[in-house]
């Protein structure tokens, strides 16, 4: 036998077999299977996009959602994030939140932290959400040109005081509506303490008494309709929020930084550290380089921040028993006293600002960190919550940022182009 013989034998073997039967619809079955594969691939692609999208949404939701357990006590966040300046718009009427970003319903509940830069913001003590408030008549210009607080959260976090200047009311001759407004964050009600002198007043250096009864601030009367450059006639005022009556404090003319007021109505200011008692008598406390002031809950001591030397100073109301603790950073802002008699201070260190509790010289406890972009003089804290455990709240899902869509947009664009090119190529091939 030869190779030809093997060939012949194989043919004989094969040729004796009948042809197999093929289903007549095999082609259509095959094409249907092909379409299923194409559909499945498309559905898979959509599923992947949906999964990625839902995962991203889920992550963002987790970052903004309140933590499990709705009955958790109110708390200060472990970290305070800076609010992006891009959320602010500048219109012919001045600064404001970008369209639809501001919340006009001010009943946002108890807050733990307030920030007055780049606009009025409170952080919920319940769920850590950031509320960009659309405060009526909020004086947006002041936070950008002052070191003194123009917004202050009450020690219990239930009320928010702010500088008010010319909202929807029309200017009447030289009387510009302005003064102080206090928002009840639980009901949304706004109380206005109006001062019609000059072109209105600039209110700065807001500070609450530990029990939340008194509010103290400095005022400057505007002598021109715009800005503070024409301000004159500075003075300090103490407001009794129960009676809504204010009293001028003559012992202190002006405070560059925050003022402090005790439960008894005594007032203190820094730079130089000064205290004015109920009898109106001024006492120089002998501390220089101090910034804002805050009274202890029992009214016996005053804590001062510092302008440059990174210290917190605690002094008795008589000027005795002075203690000074170095906490780091240059400017130190005193946030207030905790119920257990520690002082909350805020200062810059490294890449972030920090809140620490100082109980006595050399004993410090870090409780909160803040983005460095947060201007520490614009921060106020519900001091009654300072001795409670802080809670981790994820970074807020800040509203739309066009830059954040550049990369995903490019990817989606490339995928769409590729699919389109493939589809066009296939159609072209079929036409041929």
């Amino acid at each position, binding site marked *: 036998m030869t190779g030809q013989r093997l060939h012949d034998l*194989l043919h004989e073997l*094969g040729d*004796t077999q009948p042809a*197999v039967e093929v289903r007549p619809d095999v082609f259509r079955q*095959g*094409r249907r299977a092909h379409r299923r*594969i194409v559909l499945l691939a498309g559905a898979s692609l959509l599923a992947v996009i949906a999964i990625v999208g839902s995962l991203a949404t889920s992550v963002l939701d987790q970052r903004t959602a309140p933590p499990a357990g709705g009955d958790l006590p109110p708390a200060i966040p472990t970290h305070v994030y800076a609010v992006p300046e891009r959320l602010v718009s500048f219109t012919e009427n001045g600064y404001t939140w970008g369209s639809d970003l501001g919340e006009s319903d001010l009943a946002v509940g108890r807050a733990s932290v307030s920030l007055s830069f780049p606009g009025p913001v409170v952080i919920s003590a319940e769920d850590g959400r950031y509320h960009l408030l659309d405060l009526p008549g909020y004086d947006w210009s002041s936070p950008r040109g002052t070191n003194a607080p123009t917004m202050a959260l009450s020690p219990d976090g239930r009320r928010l005081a702010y500088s008010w200047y010319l909202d929807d009311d029309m200017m009447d001759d030289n009387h510009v509506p302005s003064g102080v407004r206090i928002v009840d964050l639980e009901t949304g009600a706004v109380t206005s303490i109006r001062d019609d002198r000059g072109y209105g007043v600039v209110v700065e250096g807001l500070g609450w008494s530990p029990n939340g009864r008194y509010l103290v601030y400095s005022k400057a009367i505007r002598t021109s309709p715009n800005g503070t450059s024409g301000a004159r006639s500075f003075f300090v005022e103490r407001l009794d929020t129960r009676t809504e009556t204010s009293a001028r404090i003559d012992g202190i003319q002006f405070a560059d930084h925050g003022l402090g007021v005790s439960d008894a109505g005594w007032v203190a200011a820094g730079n130089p550290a000064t205290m004015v008692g109920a009898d109106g008598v001024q006492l120089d406390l002998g501390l220089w380089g101090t910034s804002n002031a805050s009274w202890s809950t029992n009214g016996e001591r005053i804590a001062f921040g510092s302008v440059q030397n990174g210290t917190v100073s605690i002094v008795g109301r008589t000027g005795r028993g002075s203690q000074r603790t170095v906490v780091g950073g240059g400017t130190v802002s005193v946030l207030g006293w905790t119920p257990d008699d520690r002082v909350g201070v805020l200062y810059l260190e490294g890449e972030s600002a920090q809140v620490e509790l100082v109980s006595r010289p050399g004993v410090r406890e870090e409780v909160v960190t803040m983005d460095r972009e947060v201007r520490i003089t614009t921060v106020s804290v519900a001091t009654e919550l300072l001795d409670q455990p802080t809670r981790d709240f994820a970074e807020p899902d800040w509203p739309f940022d066009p830059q954040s869509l550049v990369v995903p947009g490019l990817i989606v664009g490339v995928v769409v182009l590729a699919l389109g090119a493939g589809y066009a190529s296939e159609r072209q*091939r*079929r036409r041929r």
Partner: protein
Amino acid sequence: MSAIRADESAFDTFVASRLRSLSRAAHLLTGDHHLAEDLVQTTLFKAAKAWHRIQGDPEPYVRRILHNEGVSMWRRRKLQEVPLEYGAHRPGPAEDSDLRISLRDALTTLTPRQRSVIVLRYYDDLTEVQTAAVLDIAPGTVKSMTREAFAKLRQNAPHLADLITAGGDA
């Protein structure tokens, strides 16, 4: 729709002209009519699925599917079926009239790849290079697989030695 109809018409024309040849090759690869039917059916189904991608003569593409699917089918069967005793498969001495049956039985002792090489080389009359192209292997591999196939046939079916020697040398 006209493109799809044209594809279907071309497919039907191909099947009508090549079905017998494919059936014979499938028989030689499987040694069983029903398995051959399954093999051809599966091959044509897969060819239909990818019909839009086939450029030019579909024959080489379909033949490749047939042989690859033959291997896959054999692997699946290996997992599902209990092999018979060696002696039951071993072809015994045969008369010349039974030579075809002996050859068929002897082919079943080869691996599917070896069977494919034999069928492509000595039934479809492809060159080593063409066979290598269909099976997507190197021509040298075709040569060695042919040698191994004949060695196994010589061992399992000595009475086919003349045929095998001549074929192997061809």
